[in-house]
């Protein structure tokens, strides 16, 4: 039974390997990618219900006992994230059919896509810090290939920066692992948690914690390490930009969740204060960017950065309400960022430009797209019945409980400005005077609507069905607040 836990990693890996064998048969590639994504969703939902009824699931790979072998740990947080990953991968794959172009599809596009999903799922499930590094490299290598895929001039310009930044951050990751191994003599996260607990408040532990914050902050675009993100996420084709915005930064955020709750939980005064300040500045920098630009892609890209600040504020507050809020917001943000990128992709297809000044009056010919964008914009800002609300509410409650009133205020103002930045797209791009007649528009967007509707509906479900999701989120927050449960599930009696 516990062998099922490997499937979220294995299904996309096998799907990607098989897809390598018939690159030129585009229809077969599409069908294969679609079917395997459906299987991935099924597997994940099964695991999620199983874990909710039976508690944390562990899989010792190769049958070696926990601290000695690599162990996969499926607690509710990890499996909620792999499920959400699978749920956004399917619509984005569907969106690729009509937008990515046959030339790109022939050159292993779907294989790279599946390898990316495999790396992301592996990073969520692993219980070993070096294995986390390997999963990071799996997803990063796939993302290097995807960001430059097609090889246009702007893509090549930005991908060089992206690769170099990630090579440096990977080197720092290896250095961090080396220090941690020297201090504790283990790589298993659960045993690390115990050994770091025994070492108590030695300053070297704090130094290593901050080194890991730098590494994961670089992956997750935390201020002041976000500088590579706006360029890298705005140049690739929409489908690729959507999967990056939905998943890649979230893996860095998840790693901060994990390391700061399970491993570095002894001496929190310094590390969590740093995290608090950085998350507040990240929100501010993000909204400044979101308001400053007149380019729809860049407005969205800066909204990705704002969300990083919101979610990490939950980690910095360090109480159960804030963790519930952060997890809720994290899950919803994966869905809503994918939805918004796809909507903006459809908008750019119709308008033929990404400049806000070059578009207008889309509501006349694309009413469905317009209302989808309107709902998604309100959900992003956190208007009550929709998906972004429960997460933000709990973040505010948790932040106030921890006494971080100033940051809570910053967060409220940032939410308002986020709403302003997307409503400006709505007012200028969708309402207003039509710039182009229906015939003049640059291609049909009919084929792009089903994935958009699916993602917006999923986001709406996260708002209206908040009570259905609550037990999952609560048990996920439970393992973060009380890492003993995680350690005991992994090490059992033999610690």
């Amino acid at each position: 039974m516990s062998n099922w836990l490997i499937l979220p990693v294995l299904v996309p890996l096998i799907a990607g390997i098989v897809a390598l064998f018939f690159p030129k048969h585009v229809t077969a590639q599409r069908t294969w990618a679609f079917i395997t994504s459906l299987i991935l969703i099924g597997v994940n939902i099964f695991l999620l219900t199983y874990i909710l009824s039976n508690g944390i699931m562990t899989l010792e790979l190769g049958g070696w006992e926990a601290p000695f072998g690599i162990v996969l740990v499926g607690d509710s947080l990890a499996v909620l994230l792999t499920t959400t990953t699978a749920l956004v991968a399917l619509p984005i794959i569907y969106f690729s059919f009509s937008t990515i172009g046959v030339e790109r599809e022939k050159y292993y596009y779907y294989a790279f896509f599946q390898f990316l999903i495999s790396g992301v799922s592996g990073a969520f499930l692993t219980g070993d810090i070096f294995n986390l590094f390997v999963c990071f490299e799996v997803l990063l290598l796939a993302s290097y290939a995807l960001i430059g895929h097609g090889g246009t001039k702007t893509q090549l310009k930005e991908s060089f920066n992206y690769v170099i930044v990630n090579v440096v951050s990977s080197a720092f990751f290896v250095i961090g692992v080396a220090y941690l191994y020297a201090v504790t003599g283990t790589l298993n996260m659960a045993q690390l948690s115990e050994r770091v607990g025994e070492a108590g408040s030695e300053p070297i532990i704090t130094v290593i914690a901050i080194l890991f914050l730098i590494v994961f902050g670089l992956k997750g675009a935390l201020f002041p390490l976000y500088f590579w993100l706006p360029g890298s996420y705005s140049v690739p084709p929409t489908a690729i930009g959507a999967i990056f915005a939905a998943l890649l930064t979230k893996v860095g955020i998840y790693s901060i969740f994990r390391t700061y709750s399970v491993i570095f939980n002894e001496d929190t005064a310094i590390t969590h204060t740093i995290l608090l300040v950085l998350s507040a500045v990240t929100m501010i920098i993000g909204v400044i960017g979101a308001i400053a630009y007149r380019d729809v892609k860049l407005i969205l890209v800066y909204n990705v950065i704002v969300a990083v600040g919101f979610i990490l504020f939950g980690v910095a507050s360090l109480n159960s309400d804030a963790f519930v809020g952060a997890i809720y917001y994290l899950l919803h943000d994966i869905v809503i960022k994918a939805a918004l990128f796809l909507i903006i992709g459809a908008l750019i297809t119709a308008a033929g430009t990404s400049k806000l000044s070059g578009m207008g009056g889309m509501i006349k010919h694309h009413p469905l797209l317009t209302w989808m964008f309107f709902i998604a914009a309100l959900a992003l800002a956190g208007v009550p019945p929709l998906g972004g609300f429960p997460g933000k509410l709990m973040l505010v409650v948790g932040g106030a409980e921890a006494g971080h009133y100033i940051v809570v205020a910053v967060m409220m103002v940032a939410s308002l400005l986020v709403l302003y930045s997307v409503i400006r797209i709505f007012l200028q791009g969708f309402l207003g005077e039509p710039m182009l007649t229906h015939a003049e528009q640059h291609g049909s967007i009919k084929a792009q609507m089903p994935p958009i509707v699916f993602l917006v509906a999923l986001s709406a479900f996260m708002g209206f069905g908040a009570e259905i999701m609550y037990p999952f989120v609560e048990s996920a927050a439970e393992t973060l607040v009380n890492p003993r449960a995680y350690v005991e599930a992994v090490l059992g009696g033999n610690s």
Partner: protein
Amino acid sequence: MEIIMSILAGFLFTVGLYLILTKNLIRIIIGSSVLSHGAHLLLLTMAGLKTGAPPLLGLEADTYVDPLPQALILTAIVISFGVTSFILVLGYRTYKVTGAAETDQLRGTDTDE
């Protein structure tokens, strides 16, 4: 011995980061290689450099060196090898398509206003 190795690793980090901060694409790629050499050396050093037999059970020695960091380094080496070969080709393509051999020629994209 660990102290000498740490100083060497630190020297490699300095050289690597200096090269990454230069403008030329090839120098940046060489810098990233040097940086990962430093990281691998540090991984070996941090696990301790006690004397012992190579980790081969056939030698039947009393003490062996720690085999775990060697496996980690081996993994990290192939990963950085893969990334370095990708980045070399990427640099070559970038030079071919954009004609830029220096980073300041890579500024500006179509999406800028």
